[in-house]
């Protein structure tokens, strides 16, 4: 459905995208995972035709995207990273303005707006000004605005930035539902948890290049180990951090240390060392490796660096 072929985009001396090639299938939930500044938003902007690439091409159903291809744009719905809405007018007015650009009859548009607002649970607040909405409500409205013309493809550019966990889950549920109803979704994020939960296929992007792509399982196969050790962060474990470093690379997350063991390390050796240092077993857990670990393995950096 979407074919990105050898696309390069430069801004002055900065190469935002460097010879990118990806194919995205119809009804796929495709994730683009990478740190800030990796080139994710540039790719979204190219897909939507906001600007043209310097070389290469992007085809949607065989049609080339670009600044002047309006027909292709009708197939795309955009959920920008920012809340791209007018704060000082109501949710209903915002959607009417955005919907008006798609030549939808007024009555039909109003019906679509009501339906979409219901789906994102904002119908009761439709007459309220957007500036009075919470971050989560704005995000949901931002998504609804991208769906007014019932696009085949939905481009979500980090749509959950700054959203509380409850709203984030509601957004995930809604996007999964849209995908199950047949929409192709391209989802950019620098949260590996989001990509892991939502995406059937993921491309990891860094410094404007696709490092690798595939299903979550395919990607994790690239790691030389199949499991990682999670150690809960607390008073008992934080003082023993140096010990963990002897057994592997430690990712210092908010609530836990994720230890990616060195190739020669046996788990039994680690557990013995933990016991010797007074760390109870219930603080330690064995997990499947995360995309964070994969990114670290592939680039030597963390996703959120």
């Amino acid at each position, binding site marked *: 459905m979407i074919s990105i072929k050898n696309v390069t985009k430069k801004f002055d001396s900065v190469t935002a995208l460097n010879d990118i090639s990806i194919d995205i299938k119809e009804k796929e939930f495709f994730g683009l995972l990478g740190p800030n500044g990796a080139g994710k938003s540039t790719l979204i902007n190219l897909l*939507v*035709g906001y600007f043209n690439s310097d070389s290469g091409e992007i085809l949607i159903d065989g049609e080339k995207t670009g*600044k002047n291809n*309006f027909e292709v744009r009708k197939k795309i719905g955009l959920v920008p990273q*920012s809340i791209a809405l007018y704060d000082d007018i109501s949710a209903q007015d915002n959607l009417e303005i955005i919907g008006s650009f798609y030549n939808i009859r007024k009555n039909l548009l109003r019906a679509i707006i009501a339906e979409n607002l219901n789906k994102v649970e904002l119908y009761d607040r439709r007459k309220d000004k957007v500036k009075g909405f919470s971050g989560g409500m704005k995000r949901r409205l931002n998504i609804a605005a991208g769906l007014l013309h019932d696009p085949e493809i939905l481009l979500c550019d980090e749509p959950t930035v700054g959203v509380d966990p409850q709203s984030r889950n509601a957004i995930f549920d809604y996007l999964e539902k849209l995908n199950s109803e047949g929409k192709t979704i391209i989802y950019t994020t620098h949260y590996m948890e989001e990509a892991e939960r939502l995406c059937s296929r993921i491309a990891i992007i860094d410094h404007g290049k696709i490092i690798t792509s595939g299903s979550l399982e395919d990607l994790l196969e690239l790691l030389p180990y199949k499991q990682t050790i999670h150690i809960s962060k607390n008073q008992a474990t934080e003082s023993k951090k140096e010990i963990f470093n002897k057994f592997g690379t430690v990712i210092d997350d908010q609530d836990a240390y994720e230890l990616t063991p060195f190739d020669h390390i046996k788990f039994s050796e680690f557990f013995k060392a933990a016991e010797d240092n007074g760390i109870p077993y219930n603080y330690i857990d064995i997990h499947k490796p995360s995309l964070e670990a994969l990114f670290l393995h592939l680039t030597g950096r963390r996703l959120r660096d």
Partner: protein
Amino acid sequence: MKNILNLIKKDYILFWNDKPAVGLTFIVPIFLIFLFGSIFSGSGTRPTGIRVAFLNNSNSKIAMKLESVLDTTKAFELIRNFTDEKGKTSAFDTNSIKDFVRKGNVSAALVIPGDAYTDTSMGMKLKFYYDPKNEMEMQLIEGLLTQSIMSQMPSLFMTSVQRRSESLLGNEKGRSFNKKITGLVSEYFNIDTSKMNKWMSLQDTSSTFGDTASNKSNFFNDLLRIDKEQLVGKEVNNPGATRSVGGWAIMFLLFSLTGASTSLLDENKSRVILRILSAPVSREQILFGKYLYNFSLGCIQLLVMFFAGYVLFHIDIFSNFFNLLLIIISASLASTAFGMFLASISRTQSQASGLGTLLILTMSGIGGAWFPTFILPPFIQILSKFSLVYWAMEGFMDVLWRGAGTFDILPRVGVLIGIAVIINIFSIIRFRKGNLF
């Protein structure tokens, strides 16, 4: 204390990095101080080169002397010729000089009639035609004319005394009276009597300014009789409000259109523009849509302001409504172009707002929105011609004050549209080059 110093330092860093704020704090007031200081400083500088149409039909020596005095007065630039529609330049006659004023080329004309000063005149007669579109300008012209004439030609006073005494006492007694007066003055001021007699016998004298029509018996008024005739604006209701409404209207139009145009920058920042562009909408359509919106808003705003003038001050906007509409449309086009220009050269709305305030206040000051341009220093008067405010103001005055017809206002309309076209071309180039969105 250290924290307070750090907080002060922080605010200075933020302030210095907010260039519009720096501009508004220092550059705008300095410019306005300069502008108003130039006008009202009273530092010996007076308006110079005020254009006054002039026609001298008198052969009398005093008329020649008056002409020569006015010619050498820096305050005035005497215009003696006009160019007709065919481009032919001719000297004024009594009709063409009035037309010249009526058409707004100058605010005043001074005519020395053929019988301004004859052998039997008690004083001098002048004709003064005027267009009081700017009260301040008119008062200044009258004052300066009076001052010039009075300071340069005192002998008219003595000759008039002589003639008046002869008229009242009869030739013989009058001459005797004058002789005695001459003798007394010569004795008192220690002046040679022969010189005094020679001076008293001069037939060419001078003048003072005054309106004598209502007070013919007043000797001093008879010395210089000026028949004043208002050629333009006699029918205008509430002249003061008519003069000022255009100035305020155009200034606030510029402020509102600048805000509306530069909202593009905010829309781009919030990525609403990106969302709109993800729909089947082109950049050109966004720009053109914004331009047309601003243009229509400008027209509505001006119409509402003039209508408010009609309701509040009974300004007559309907008797020449079509031509008023033409000026409103062309002024809105130019003002919209100005707003889009600001959007094209600014990175943020606050930057555009700061720059806009500076430019709008400058244009309003030098363009005649606050006070007539003739009182500005000459080089600023030249600059004012490059301001769209000047041409809009002239257009409004043409229509509301002079009742000018469509053909008469076409040059103003043309200049305003020309300004709009030039600024728009520049803005489009900037939008494309700057890659605003």
